[in-house]
């Protein structure tokens, strides 16, 4: 495919690309983008926003806190999600656990039915209202973790549902208990199916943590706002924050694509 494409002089995609580039160039030219003043000015503002007084460190620390929260929240979500989904699937599969099942259903409904920002504010100002010595980041991790747990539970339920029913029947007919067949036969296959979706959940969560500033955590978004307050400039810090998010998300997405390829190959073999 790639060989043939590169031998062609121009494909339709190329024309679009060049037309796009030319339009952008003309627009930039007209707006005075290529003047010395504009570039010097861009440099001066860039220096003010990110270099002076090591302000880039605010973004770095913000990013660190964003990734810290996202990682641990995903871990909590993973544990909670697996437990909740297994409860719901087991109940549907004939194991009699009505109370646990009701709790799990309520949990998923409540946490998927309310915005994550409202949940965050409730956790911080209502549930942990008097927890003064608790680091706010841990509250945020709990809030985001439980929130993503509800979504991960649904992902896993789908993953378990995608495993052929014959697998369970075969395991049970060999004399394994329901729990053992679930743990050693169904879940390993289900997990392999849902790993790409879990990575996607991580990516979604990474962007959702941008509301953490509301309870006073200096995450990446809030770090940009702090720089705005220092330099009184609106666009550059925001665009830089957006760029950082974009680069991370694109990198993670490419990992997911590779992972998907890898997993589907091992499935065939």
């Amino acid at each position, binding site marked *: 495919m790639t060989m043939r494409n590169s031998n062609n002089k121009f494909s339709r995609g190329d024309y679009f690309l*060049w037309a796009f580039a030319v339009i952008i160039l003309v627009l930039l030219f007209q707006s005075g983008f*290529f003047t*010395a003043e504009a570039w010097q000015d861009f440099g001066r503002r860039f220096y003010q926003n990110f270099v002076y007084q090591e302000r880039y460190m605010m973004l770095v620390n913000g990013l660190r806190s964003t990734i810290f929260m996202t990682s641990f929240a995903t871990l909590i979500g993973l544990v909670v999600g697996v437990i909740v989904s297994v409860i719901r699937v087991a109940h549907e599969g004939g194991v009699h656990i009505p109370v646990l099942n009701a709790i799990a259903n309520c949990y998923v409904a409540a946490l998927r039915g309310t915005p994550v920002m409202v949940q965050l504010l409730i956790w911080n100002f209502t549930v942990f*209202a008097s927890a003064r010595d608790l680091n706010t980041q841990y509250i945020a991790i709990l809030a985001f973790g439980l929130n993503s747990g509800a979504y991960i539970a649904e992902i896993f339920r789908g993953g378990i549902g995608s495993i052929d029913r014959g697998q369970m029947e075969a395991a049970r007919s060999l004399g394994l208990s329901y729990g053992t067949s679930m743990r050693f036969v169904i879940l390993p296959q289900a997990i392999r199916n849902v790993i790409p979706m879990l990575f996607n959940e991580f990516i979604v969560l990474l962007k959702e943590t941008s509301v953490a500033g509301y309870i006073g955590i200096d995450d990446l978004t809030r770090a940009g706002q702090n720089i705005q307050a*220092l330099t009184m400039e609106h666009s550059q810090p925001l665009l830089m924050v957006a760029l950082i998010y974009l680069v991370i998300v694109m990198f993670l997405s490419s990992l997911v694509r590779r992972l998907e390829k890898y997993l589907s190959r091992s499935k065939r073999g």
Partner: protein
Amino acid sequence: MKKLLLAVLVLAVIGVGSYYYFCDKDVKTFSLDVNAKSPAPIQTQAKLKNIDNLKNQKLAAQRGTVGQYIAEDLLGEENKNLLTTFEKYVDAISALRQQKVRAVVMDEMPAKRFVNDVKGLVIMKQELSVENYAIGFKKGNAELLNRVNQALKDIKADGTLNKIFEKYYNGDLDKINPAEIDFNLNATGGKLVIGTEAGFAPYELRVGESYIGIDVEMCAAIAKALVIENMNFDALPMAVSTGKVDMICAGITVTDERKQNMDFSDDYVEGAKQVAVVLADDYEE
């Protein structure tokens, strides 16, 4: 992917090339610097002359601040949908510069900083109100309130507070080193947690991993071990009433309405003004 790379490369070459081409020529096109460029003149409307002109105009204020209440009073019931509230002053000023609103109602000190640094903005001569700042406490927390009042009296008497005001009113904020502020973090006997909104120069600002500002240094002077929680301004009353923080200090204006929900210390700033920031082209004294 390769083609995209090629396109970016071509763009970069043309960009750099034209940069050098124009470098020694005196090209007077308009600059991209939003701060240096004054906005396009407003021709369709009559220029603003005094506060009364604002009564039927689009206004902006920071959410939860006295500026918001003043703007609401100014607009009255019939025009209240003309007010837009923002989380941060920077957002409100941006809206003004993009002519989405006609004036921003805000405190005088941060307004001065914006007017100094951002071209094309002025403060209307006539102020909207004069008020005092104090520290807010949870209703009924008399013990801490009395101790803080005593400490405030002490730092007023020995000149510490005045020194802090002079440092911030006259000095360059960029030159203040947060490492020089002593937060007494190793002091024994408990810590004092304050809530603030660090986007309110010169009262509180986040610098790197620490804070500077009049409120910050004042609290550092009266507290044993100072811990600062940075949150949105409209979340501060909630934080102090639930006990998340011991007190809130963020250039908070004492109002009767607020007195119903929290207790206030003695005033530490008297005669702080609320002003309207407008575009210079849009204002005629």
